[in-house]
């Protein structure tokens, strides 16, 4: 088994044991990037020299027994909407094309303290607005399973980098499915934690009340380890929550006996690809065979999630993105007459089409006379959706369903029809509206050879049950493949 075939935890063990040096791990990743990056374009920025320098520093600390954790020396990718001190942070937008932050996002800092090596900044949809990574101002990322297809989004660069072995794991952010959907499309594991679990300090906001940072990994074990490392309360983020139940690795147990799983019938209606439907139902069946109690139920309100989500997220985004004005940092138009003309030209030139569409939509729903009809109503829908989930979690430990209606679409197929792209978020979006944790794990491939994702959702603060069920399912699949292989 080559270095690149290791999971993050396997690599970390080899590094601690002295079987692999940090420099060897970083060089292996760089060699891979040099070979495949031209095809996949997972990164906006990657820094070979910087990564090698970090590698040597971390090796010294490992040799001095100052770094003994499972992630020490492991090369990682960070989605380009998290600030990294001294390293370009663009949000995949022209408007931040020259922005080098003076501070590091809290979640990234926790990884650095654990001794990871940051290889670079992963591509994404501009300001995380999109489901394909095609709205990036720096070119689309391609799906490593088939470069004619998108990797999903908005954390498409992060998911593709893990799938293409251009890093051992990555951080992404999830506002309406932006971790889980690209994880499904690229055949990796992605977890969106309970809102408030990971600090948002340094995460360049899209929809502040929905955004949450989470890991994209090769397997469930890595996912638990990374989540445990970044899930820490932060005084700098008022929405961060102090939890004392973040020993996620303790949930890596192969057992689902007695776990109650609900399958919402509403998730299996029109628009769902039959191959995806079959793979997800088969996964549920396999869990039932291991002792889980599986039944179908009606979740309700699913159709209202998309309009409520786009109202709230875009309203927040329209305000969050006001700071990009050409005054203090980032792009400023070359020629202008007066302040207003400068604002107008800078923002017209600096933002892409999808970002401008959402800023306009968000400004509209907040404007005087429409606030009650749209924004307030969307907040009420959000509360009702949360209530529907609360009711479901009275009966079930886990809600199981697909991540997305289809596998990864072809490049260019989504951009022409934004509404269709928005509908692709139908299974992931309500999880953000309700602040719940959700995980995406691979559950097969379709006839085109593209991966299918299985989504599991738990009640707030119940990541442990998600991790336990996902871990068990992963073992079921491994055993199946061993029997078949």
């Amino acid at each position, binding site marked *: 088994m080559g270095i690149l075939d290791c999971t993050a935890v396997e690599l970390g063990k080899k590094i601690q044991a002295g079987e692999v040096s940090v420099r060897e791990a970083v060089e292996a990743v760089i060699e891979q990037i040099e070979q495949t990056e031209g095809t996949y374009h997972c990164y906006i920025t990657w820094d070979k020299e910087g990564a090698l320098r970090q590698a040597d520093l971390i090796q010294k600390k490992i040799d001095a027994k100052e770094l003994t954790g499972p992630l020490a020396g492991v090369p990682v990718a960070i989605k380009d909407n998290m600030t990294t001190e001294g390293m370009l942070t663009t949000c995949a937008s022209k408007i931040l094309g020259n922005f080098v932050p003076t*501070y590091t996002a809290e979640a990234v800092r926790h990884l650095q303290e654990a001794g990871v090596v940051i290889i670079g900044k992963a591509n994404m949809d501009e300001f995380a607005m999109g489901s394909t990574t095609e709205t990036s101002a720096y070119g689309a990322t391609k799906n490593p399973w088939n470069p004619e297809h998108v990797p999903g989004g908005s954390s498409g660069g992060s998911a593709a980098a893990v799938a293409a072995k251009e890093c051992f794991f990555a951080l992404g952010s999830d506002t309406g499915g932006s971790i889980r959907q690209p994880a499904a499309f690229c055949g990796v594991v992605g977890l969106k934690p309970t809102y408030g679990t990971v600090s948002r300090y340094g995460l360049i906001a899209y929809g502040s009340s929905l955004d949450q940072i989470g890991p994209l990994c090769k397997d469930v074990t890595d996912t638990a380890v990374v989540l445990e490392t970044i899930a820490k309360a932060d005084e700098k983020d008022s929405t961060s929550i102090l939890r004392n139940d973040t020993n996620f690795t303790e949930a890596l147990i192969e057992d689902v006996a007695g776990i109650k799983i609900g399958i919402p019938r509403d998730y299996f209606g029109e628009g769902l690809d039959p191959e995806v439907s079959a793979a997800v139902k088969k996964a549920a069946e396999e869990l039932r065979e291991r002792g889980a109690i599986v039944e179908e139920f009606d979740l309700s309100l699913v159709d209202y999630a998309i309009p409520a989500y786009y109202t709230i997220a875009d309203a927040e985004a329209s305000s969050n993105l006001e700071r990009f004005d050409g005054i203090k*940092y980032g792009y400023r138009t070359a020629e202008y007459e007066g302040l207003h003309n400068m604002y107008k030209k800078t923002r017209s030139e600096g933002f892409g089409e999808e970002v401008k569409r959402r800023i306009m939509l968000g400004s509209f729903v907040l404007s005087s006379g429409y606030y009650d009809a749209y924004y307030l109503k969307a907040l009420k829908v959000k509360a009702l959706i949360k209530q529907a989930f609360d009711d479901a979690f009275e009966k079930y430990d886990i809600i199981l369903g697909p991540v997305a209606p289809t596998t990864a679409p072809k490049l260019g197929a989504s951009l022409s029809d934004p509404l269709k792209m928005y509908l692709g978020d139908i299974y992931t979006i309500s999880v953000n509206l309700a602040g719940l944790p959700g995980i995406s794990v691979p559950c097969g491939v379709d006839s085109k050879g593209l991966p299918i994702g299985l989504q599991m959702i738990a009640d707030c603060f119940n990541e442990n049950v998600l991790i336990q069920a996902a871990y068990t399912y992963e073992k079921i699949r491994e055993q199946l493949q061993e029997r078949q292989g």
Partner: protein
Amino acid sequence: MAKEYETVIGLEVHVELATKTKIFCGCSTRFGGEPNTHTCPVCTGMPGSLPVLNKQVVEYAAAVGLATNCDITRHCKFDRKNYFYPDNPQNYQISQLYLPICRNGYVEIETKDADQNAVTKKVGIHEIHMEEDAGKLVHDEWGDCSLVDYNRSGVPLIEIVSEPDMRSADEVIAYLEKLRMIIQYLGASDCKLQEGSMRADVNLSVREVGSEQFGTRTEMKNLNSFTSITHAIEGEKNRQIDLLEAGEKVVQETRRWDDVKMESYAMRSKEDAQDYRYFPDPDLIPVEISEEWLDELRAKQPEFRPEKIERYKKEYDIPEYDIEIITGTKRMADIFEEAAALCGQPKKVSNWLMVETMRLLKENNMDADQIRFAPEHLAKLIQLVDQKVINQTTAKEIFEVIFAEDIDPERYVEEHGLKQVSDEGALHKTVEEVIAANPQSVADYRAGKEKALGFLVGQTMKIMKGKADPATVNKLLKDLL
């Protein structure tokens, strides 16, 4: 017969709170400093930064609300007010629209009725909300550009919005003085109009006497002294009446007062009013003010001026005029109470404050809340005089040093050798010398001219460099002559 008009005035008063750090970050609120040195990613609107509420801001705002008879909103929220301007780093200001912290209060002001009789009037307070200040634009005329200083960005403010209950400039000034007194007593702000820590915008309309309906109002900005507020009110009242008399209409607009030209000009009309697209700030959680917290804040409310005046009348044997002056600022009242308690001589403390302190404040162009000296130093000075360690003349000189540098008078007397000499033996020789050197005066005194004794006392004090006890010198001279 000419129509009679009534002026209707409501105020929006911004007060900068006296917290050490800004409202949403740990940066210093200290005035001055090189541009952009009291800044961080939060108060400069850097991407990914997040606001965290300073609890002291809530406490000050609620304290002002309690002191002005407001209902405190137990579950209050912050909203974003969206508008683009370079001094506003996020291009939204974090403020409160939907659930402000205080509502529905009032203050009582002393005013005069039509017959010039003193009456008490209630001025309603519509709401008080918390918000952040903006940065400052500096226009560089040489460089043909504008620069931004974010040192003030994020300094906490409260905005006190009154009901349209005032009818004259006198009432407006009385209301502002009352607010300032309350807020200064709370220690929530120094409330200086000139320095901008208190700013008032005047909403004014006129209507015919007897009319139930309000006229169209204008909002006047840039008023930074009580005098300019008075002038602006008079000017705007007359401008509106002139318009109405000429059959024209008052336009709802924001106007800027020019205190030099003594006139106002329109800044923007209601038509170009911006849509601020207010919505709850998702980066901040709602502020929950518990019953316990509110009780704590109630318990911490200081004794305000009216109660203080009543107590002083009972406790201290000092003139009412002195009480008025001393309680005029919390700083002066605090010094008085502490010094009086320490030396047990309230009357003497009051004298030092009323005469010497007031004189030095005037000479130095200072306000009473800028007094720096510690009350124990004044108390000690009074004790030193009482114990005849120093005489009154020396005490006055030392007090000037106390006022300027807050020195310890006891140590100062030691270090500078200022103890007065009251020992008869030690003075005897000097008095004899003075008698010998001034035969004419001695002769005059003996001839019955009492005045000559004064001259001889003065000569003795001069040789003693003012340190002799005048009473002892007097006695010695009389004995020897």
